[in-house]
C-alpha cells in the first residue's frame, strides 16, 4: 500500500531538492504513487481553432451536475453581461469551463490581408499594431468621432474576435492543494488536482491561493468546487466531457507529454504561417507553477483573456514566510520577556 499524502513532497523529505517550485518530472510519483501509476494527463486548449460554441461549458455542467449561475457565480440566476457573447464571466464553483470572448479592432489600410490558394494563405490575420481592446464596448459618447463619414467605409477597421475556453490548470505546483488544511484537495494518480467534497470544510483558503482564480466557494453550500478533469470518467477510461464535446478539437485531452509535443508542432506551424502573437501558455515547466497540466495556445497576451501573465505559486515563498513568522514569534517572546527584566513597575 502506497502512502498518498496531500502534503508537498518538499515537506515530506521525498524531494531532495526541497522544491516548492520548478519542474517536477514525475509529479504523480512525487506524491507517493507506485511506479506503475498512469501517465500524467492534461488538456491542450488550442484557442486558434475555438469557435466559441460553449459546448465544453454545457457538457461539463451536464456531466458534473453543476447548477445554472450568472457571471458572478450566483446560483439559479441569469444575467446579460454585455461582455461580448460571454455570459459565464469566469471560472468558479459552478462553471468549470469558461469561454472568453474578446472583441478587438484596429484601423487598417486596405487591401485586407492576403488571401489566395492554399500555401499562399497566411491563415490568421497578422496584427501589426497592438490591437485596441475594449474591456467595455465604447459608450456612445466616445463613438461620435468614429461616426464621422470618412471612417464609415466598411473595411477600414479590422476586427478580431478571440475565443478561448479556460479551465483549471492542474498545476505541477498547485497552490490550492498546498494550502488546503484538510487534505480535501489531493493529487490523483493521473497527476491532476481534485477536491474531495466529503472532506472540504469550506475554509476557503484555496480560493485566493490560486494564481488563476479558478477554484471558488459555492454560495449556500460552503464548499469549494473546481474542474476535476473528470476524474470519475478517467477512472472509467473515458475522456473528460468537455474534450468529448469540443467539435473543433480546440480542447485536446491526452497524456501531457504527447500534448506538449503536439502543441509545439502547432505553434511552429502557426509561426511559420506568420501568425503573430501565437504563443503557448502554461507549457513551460520552468514557469512559476512548474508548468500546467492544462495549457493553452493563445493568440494574444494572457491578460487579454483574463489570465495572469506570469503566475507564481504562492508557496514558492513559503520558506521565507515561515522564517519571518518564526522570527516574529521569537521577537514577541524576546521583547515581552525584556519588558519584565529589571524594573519592578
Amino acid at each position, binding site marked *: 500500500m502506497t502512502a498518498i499524502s496531500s502534503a508537498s513532497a518538499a515537506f515530506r523529505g521525498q524531494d531532495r531538492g526541497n522544491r516548492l517550485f520548478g519542474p517536477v518530472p514525475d509529479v504523480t510519483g512525487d506524491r507517493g504513487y507506485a511506479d506503475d501509476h498512469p501517465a500524467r494527463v492534461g488538456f491542450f486548449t488550442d484557442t486558434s481553432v475555438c469557435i466559441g460554441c460553449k459546448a465544453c461549458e454545457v457538457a461539463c455542467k451536464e456531466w458534473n451536475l453543476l447548477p445554472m449561475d450568472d457571471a458572478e457565480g450566483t446560483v439559479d440566476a441569469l444575467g446579460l453581461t454585455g461582455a461580448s457573447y460571454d455570459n459565464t464571466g469566469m471560472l468558479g464553483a459552478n462553471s468549470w469551463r469558461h469561454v472568453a470572448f474578446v472583441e478587438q479592432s484596429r484601423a487598417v489600410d486596405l487591401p485586407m490581408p492576403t488571401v489566395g490558394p492554399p500555401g499562399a494563405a497566411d491563415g490568421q490575420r497578422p496584427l501589426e499594431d497592438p490591437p485596441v481592446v475594449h474591456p467595455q464596448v465604447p459608450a456612445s459618447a466616445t463613438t461620435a468621432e468614429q461616426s464621422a463619414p470618412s471612417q464609415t467605409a466598411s473595411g477600414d477597421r479590422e476586427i478580431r474576435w478571440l475565443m478561448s475556453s479556460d479551465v483549471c490548470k492542474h498545476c505541477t505546483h498547485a497552490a490550492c492543494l498546498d494550502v488546503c488544511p484538510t487534505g480535501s484537495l489531493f493529487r490523483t494518480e493521473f497527476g491532476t488536482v481534485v477536491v474531495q467534497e466529503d472532506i472540504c470544510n469550506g475554509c476557503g483558503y484555496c480560493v485566493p491561493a490560486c494564481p488563476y482564480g479558478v477554484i471558488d466557494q459555492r454560495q449556500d453550500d460552503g464548499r469549494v468546487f473546481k474542474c476535476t478533469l473528470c476524474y470519475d470518467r478517467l477512472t472509467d477510461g473515458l475522456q473528460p466531457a468537455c474534450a468529448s464535446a469540443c467539435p473543433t478539437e480546440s480542447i485536446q485531452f491526452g497524456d501531457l507529454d504527447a500534448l506538449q509535443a503536439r502543441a509545439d508542432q502547432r505553434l511552429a506551424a502557426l509561426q511559420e504561417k506568420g501568425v503573430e502573437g501565437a504563443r503557448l501558455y502554461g507549457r513551460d515547466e520552468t514557469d512559476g507553477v512548474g508548468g500546467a497540466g492544462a495549457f493553452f495556445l493563445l493568440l494574444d497576451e494572457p*491578460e487579454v483573456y*483574463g489570465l495572469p501573465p506570469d503566475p507564481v505559486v504562492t508557496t514558492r515563498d513559503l520558506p521565507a*514566510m515561515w522564517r519571518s513568522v518564526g522570527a516574529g514569534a521569537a521577537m514577541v517572546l524576546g521583547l515581552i520577556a525584556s519588558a519584565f527584566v529589571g524594573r519592578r513597575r
Partner: protein
Amino acid sequence: MVDEVEFTSYYGRPIIKPPVWKTPDVPLYLFLGGAAGSSAVLGALAEGTRRPALARVAHLTAGGGALASVAFLIHDLGRPSRFLNMLRVLKTTSPLSVGSWILAPFSALTTATAGAHLLGRFPLLRRFTGAGAAVLGGPMTTYTAALLADTAVPSWHEAHRELPVVFAGSAMAAGGGITTALTPLDEAGPARRVAAMGAAIELAAMHRVEHGHGLVSEPYRTGRAGKLLKTARACTATGAGLTLLAGRSRTAAAVSGALLAVGSVLTRFGVFDAGMASAKDPRYTVEPQRARARASEAAASRAAAGSRRGS
C-alpha cells in the same frame, strides 16, 4: 505610477478570486488571536515574576481572545460542522493547517488557564498550562500573517516578509494595551512596555508595507483600506504616546490601552481590506507580473545575444 496605457484586462474582471473570508469574522479573528498570543506570553511571565493581577488579566484576555478567535474562525467556515477536519492532517505548506495546530492547543491551554484563574483553583495546573500557552503565544501572533501572505493576493503576498512583523507588533500593542488598561498601575509596567514596543514595531513595519512594494503597496494607501490604516496609525501612535502617562493614571492607561487595541483592530481591518482591493482589481495582478515577464524576456534575449557574441 506605472503607465496605465499598457494595462489590459478581460472586461476589468479580477484575475484571481478575492478571498471568500467574511468580514468582520476574519479581521477580528486576526486581531483576537494576536492579542491573545501576546497576552498569553505576558500572563506566563507575570505569573513567573509574581504579578498576580497582571497574570490574571493577561490570562483572561488570552483565554477570551483565543475562544472568540476560534469561534470566528469556525463561523467563517463554509461547513462549520466539519471544523474538526482542520485537524485531519498537518500540512506545513498550509499556514491554516499549521495555524490550526497552533490555535487548537493554544486555545485549550489558555482557556484552561483562564478557567483556573476564574475558579481560583488548580494553581499548579495553571502555571503549567500558562507556560504552555506562552510557548504557543509567539507563533499565535504571527502565523496569521503567513495565512494572508500565502495567497495569490498581490498586496498580501508581496508583503510576506513584513506582515509577520506587523502582526507581531500589532499583537503586542493590542495585548499590552488591553492588559495595561485592565491591570492596576503597580503591576502593569511590563504591559505598558510591551504595548509601547509593539506599537512602535507595528508603525514601522506597516510603513514598509505601505510604501515598499511599488504598485501593490497602493491599496494600503487608498480607498477604505487607506482610511482604516490612517486612523489605525493615529490611534496606535497616540496610544503609544499615552503609555508614557499610563504609569501614573489609570484613566490614561485605559485610554492608551483602548487606543492601542483599536489601532490594532483597524490595522487588521485595513490590511484585510487592502488585500481584498488588490485582489479585485486586475491591475495589481497583471502589472507586476507583466513587468516581471518583460524583465525576464529582456534578460533572456540579452543572454541569447551574449551567447551569440560568444560563439
